[in-house]
């Protein structure tokens, strides 16, 4: 249909960009952006991530070969716990939760105004349910 690529769609895209700009200025989303940048660039975090990835690969191989030891499971769990305790990881996780809650709040406002759930309608599992 031609109409959806017309003015209506342009207005929606324009409002979306304005909404995104306003979102980025909020403390919740700003905090998340900062935390994400630190998470992605912190050498200790990235180094630990690589170790975790190697651990996971070795774990999977051992599982397939049937040589998985109790000790190996404990090591992987401990490494994961150490990773989560790294300050940038902890902050990233908390900031993401706070940002997620605020996004939910915006979705609630949109859904109330529109009478239709944006997140759910556009979401991945929004099929013919």
């Amino acid at each position, binding site marked *: 249909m031609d109409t959806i690529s017309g003015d*209506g769609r342009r207005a929606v895209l324009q409002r979306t960009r304005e909404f995104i700009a*306003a979102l980025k200025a*909020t403390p919740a989303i700003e905090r998340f952006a900062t935390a994400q940048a630190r998470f992605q660039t912190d050498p200790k975090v990235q180094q630990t991530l690589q170790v975790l990835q190697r651990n996971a690969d070795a774990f999977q191989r051992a599982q397939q070969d049937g040589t998985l030891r109790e000790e190996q499971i404990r090591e992987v769990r401990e490494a994961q716990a150490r990773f989560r305790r790294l300050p940038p990881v902890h902050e990233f996780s908390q900031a993401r939760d706070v*940002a997620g809650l605020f996004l939910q709040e915006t979705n609630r*406002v949109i859904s109330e105004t*529109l009478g239709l759930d944006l*997140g759910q309608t556009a979401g991945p599992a929004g099929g013919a349910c």
Partner: protein
Amino acid sequence: MSPAKQDVMHGVDLQEAALEKARALARAVGESPSFKAFEAAQEALMADREVNGKLQAFQRRQQGVRFAQAWGGGDPAQEAALEEEWRTLSRTATLQAYLRAQEQLRDILRVVAGMISQEIGIDYGAACSPAGGCC
């Protein structure tokens, strides 16, 4: 007022501003031709008593089949019959028009959610339907 308190106040204002932009976005979607077409198709579907009745009966049977599947008692014959029933049902004009309108609206909403997800770095759909959508 302390600087910290001023910061909090400022933060609240920024949040309120974002919520106002969210409302403006919702209004723009509500005024878009694809949303209006969806509403009209939905009304037409609701007014079509015959298709509506069949649709409700189909949904009841679908629920039964899904329930059986979830508990490991799926019956392939029943599932095939249900699929056939859907094929027949989805050929009716009102339902076809509704599904088409819904898909077009969904297209635009996916674009909106996709832009937000990409710019913010969090999947908007996933963040907003924590239970994984409507299923």
